[in-house]
C-alpha cells in the first residue's frame, strides 16, 4: 500500500461496510476487494429509450488522498457492457462531469453518491450523441482523466 494510503483505506473500508448493508436500486458492486480499484455496474431505472435494458460497467480508481481528492471514474467496455451514449461521455469511457474534477468534487461525496449522480445524468439525457470532437479526442488522448482540463460548458445535460 502506498504511504499515506491509510487515509483512503479507512474511508473505503467504511464505505464497504455501508455498501454491504445495501445499495440503491440499479447499482451493484462487482469487485471491491482492494482499496485501489473497484468495479460497479449501474442501470438506468426509468424507461429512457437510450438506456433501457442496458447495464454499464464503471471503474473507480482511488488515490491515496481519497476522498480529499476525487476518484478517477470511467466507463469500461465489455461484450455485454457498452459505453452509454451521452453528450458528456466519450466513446472510450471517459466522463466529463464537474463533480469528478478538482473544482466540483467535495470530500463528502462517495462511491455511492457518484454512481447515483451518473445514473441521474443518464436519466435526464435525451440526446443520442457523443461529445463534439469525440473521434478526435479518443484517437489523440493519452492523458489520464484527472489530467484533462475539461471545460464544463453546459450543466444542463
Amino acid at each position, binding site marked *: 500500500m502506498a504511504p499515506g494510503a491509510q*487515509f483512503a483505506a*479507512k*474511508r473505503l473500508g*467504511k*464505505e464497504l461496510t455501508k455498501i454491504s448493508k445495501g445499495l440503491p436500486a440499479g447499482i451493484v458492486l462487482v469487485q471491491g476487494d482492494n482499496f485501489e480499484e473497484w468495479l460497479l455496474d449501474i442501470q438506468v431505472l426509468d424507461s429512457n429509450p437510450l438506456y433501457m435494458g442496458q447495464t454499464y460497467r464503471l471503474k473507480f480508481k482511488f488515490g491515496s*488522498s481519497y*476522498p*480529499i*481528492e476525487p476518484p478517477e471514474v470511467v466507463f469500461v467496455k465489455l461484450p455485454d457492457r457498452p459505453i452509454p451514449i451521452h453528450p458528456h461521455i466519450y466513446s472510450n469511457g471517459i466522463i466529463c462531469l464537474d463533480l469528478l474534477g*478538482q473544482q466540483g468534487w*467535495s*470530500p*463528502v*461525496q462517495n462511491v455511492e453518491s457518484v454512481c447515483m449522480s451518473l445514473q441521474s445524468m443518464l436519466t435526464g439525457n435525451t440526446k443520442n450523441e457523443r461529445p463534439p470532437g469525440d473521434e478526435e479526442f479518443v484517437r489523440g488522448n493519452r492523458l489520464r482523466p484527472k489530467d484533462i482540463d475539461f471545460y464544463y460548458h453546459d450543466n444542463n445535460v
Partner: protein
Amino acid sequence: MDSDDDFMSAVSSEDDILPDDSDNDDLSGAEDFDFDDEPDPDLGMSKDIGRKRVAYDISFKVYQPADIEKQQDDLINEVNMILNISKEEAAILLRHFRWNKERLIEDYMDAPPQVLEAAGLAQESASLPRLEVQPGFVCDICCEEGPGLASFAIKCGHRYCVDCYRHYLSQKIKEEGEAARIQCPSDGCDLIVDARSLDLLVTPELKERYHELLNRTYVEDKDTLKWCPAPDCQNAIECGVKKKDLDKVVPTVSCLCAHRFCFGCILSDHQPAPCELVKKWLKKCADDSETANWISANTKECPKCNSTIEKNGGCNHMTCRKCKHEFCWMCMGLWSEHGTSWYSCNRFEEKSGTEARDAQAKSRVSLERYLHYYNRYANHEQSARLDKDIYTKTEKKMVQLQKESGMSWIEVQYLNSASQALQTCRQTLMWTYAFAFYLARNNLTEIFEDNQKDLEMAVEGLSEMFEKPVTELADPKLKVEIMDKTSYCNKRRIILLDDTAQNLADGRWTFNVELTGSAPASGGPSNRR
C-alpha cells in the same frame, strides 16, 4: 570578485540615457490607478516635457515582496476601518473585487448581504471559528465518530474532524496551489475558508506557503502588476500599459534584478517588434511551416501522381518510382517530348512545364526571403547566447588588465560597459530582423533599414575591438576607441528604437500580416463579473 558582481550587474549599459526609474513619479498614485476604458493618449510617454524622454520609454515601478505585502495590508486595513469588518473578511472581499477598493466600498454600501454572499462570506459573524469537541459528532469525510474527536467548522457550520479538514486544506494548498478561493469542503457550499481559520489548522510550513500564494493572487489579480519572470526573482512590476495598446507600444521594463522583459507578453525584451509580431515570428520559427517550404523549394512533385521527389543524382530524366511516369526535372514536362536533348533541357516555355515551375518559384522566393531574415535573426540570437561567455571573458580580461597595466578597477570598467552594450544591442538587432520580415515597404522602411545597418556596423565594429588580446586592450588609444564605440552603439540603438517606437505609436508602419494585438479591450473589473 564576488563583491564586485553586484555592482557590475547594476551597471546598466544605458544608464547614460534613460531617466532614472526609481524617481519616476508617473505612477505614484498607483493605488487609485483608474481602470476606465479611456485610452491614455500619451501612454505616459511625454508627460515630463522637461526631462529627456524617448518614444519607446514607458513608466513602470518595481516592487519587492515587502512592498507588495505592505500594499495589501494597507488596503486591507483601510477597508477594515471603513466597513467595520474583520481584516480576514476585508481581505476576502478585496480579493473578490480584484483589489478595486472603490468599487468594493461602493457596492458594499449599497447591499452588504449580496456582496458578502457573492464573495463567499457568511453574514452572521456570531462567534469566531474554533476547534470543538461535540458529543455525537460523525465526520462526513472519514466517517469517524467517537468521544473526543475534535472538529472544526467555518461560519456555515459544516463540521468535519480536524484531521480531515487539515488534509483537505493541505491538498488544496500543496497540490492545487489554491489559497484565496478555498471553499468549505461541503458539497455546494461556497463559503471561503479565511486566513485566520487556516492559521488555526495547518502546519507553519503550509501557512507560509498559503500566504505566499495569497501574495501571488494580489499580483495576478491586478492588471497593472506582473511578476518579474527571471528565475528566483520575487519582484513585481507595475505598469499602466493596456492590452489594447500593445500594437502601438512595446513596453519593455527592467527589474531591479537587471532582467529586461516586455510587460505585454513577459518575454525577454523584444523591442522594436510589437508583441503580436513576436508571437507570429516565434511560431513561424518553431513550427513546421518552414520545413514544408523547404520541401516545396527543394523537391518536386511528380506531375502525374504528386509523389514528392528529391533529386539526388545528376540525370534529369526522372522516372517516378510510384507511377513510373517519365518527366524532365528541369522543365517538369514529359520526357517523351524531349526527343534527343538528353541531359540538358534547353526547351523554353513549353506549355506542359510552365505551371509547375511557377508554383515552385513562388515558394522558393518566399523561403529565400524568410531565410534572409531568419539567418540574421538567428545569428544575433546566437551571439546574444554567447553573451555569458563574453561576460566571463571580460571579467578575466579586466583582472588581467589590472595586473598587467597597473590600471585600477574603476579604470577597466569600460570593458564591462562595452560587453553590456554588445548584449543589449544584439538583442535589439535580433528583433529588428523579425520586425523587418513582417514590414511592408514604404518610405519609412528605408530609414529603418539605414538605422539597422548603422547599428549593426557599429556593433560588429565594437565586437571586433572587444576580441583583441589583452596587451592591445591596455593601449590607451584603443581604450578611448572602445569607449567611444560603446557610446556610439548605445546611441545608434536609441535612435533606431526611438524611430520605430514613434512610428508604431503613430500607426505609420504597415505590416504584411494582420496585427491583431488590439484584442477586445479587457475593460477593467466592471465587465468581468
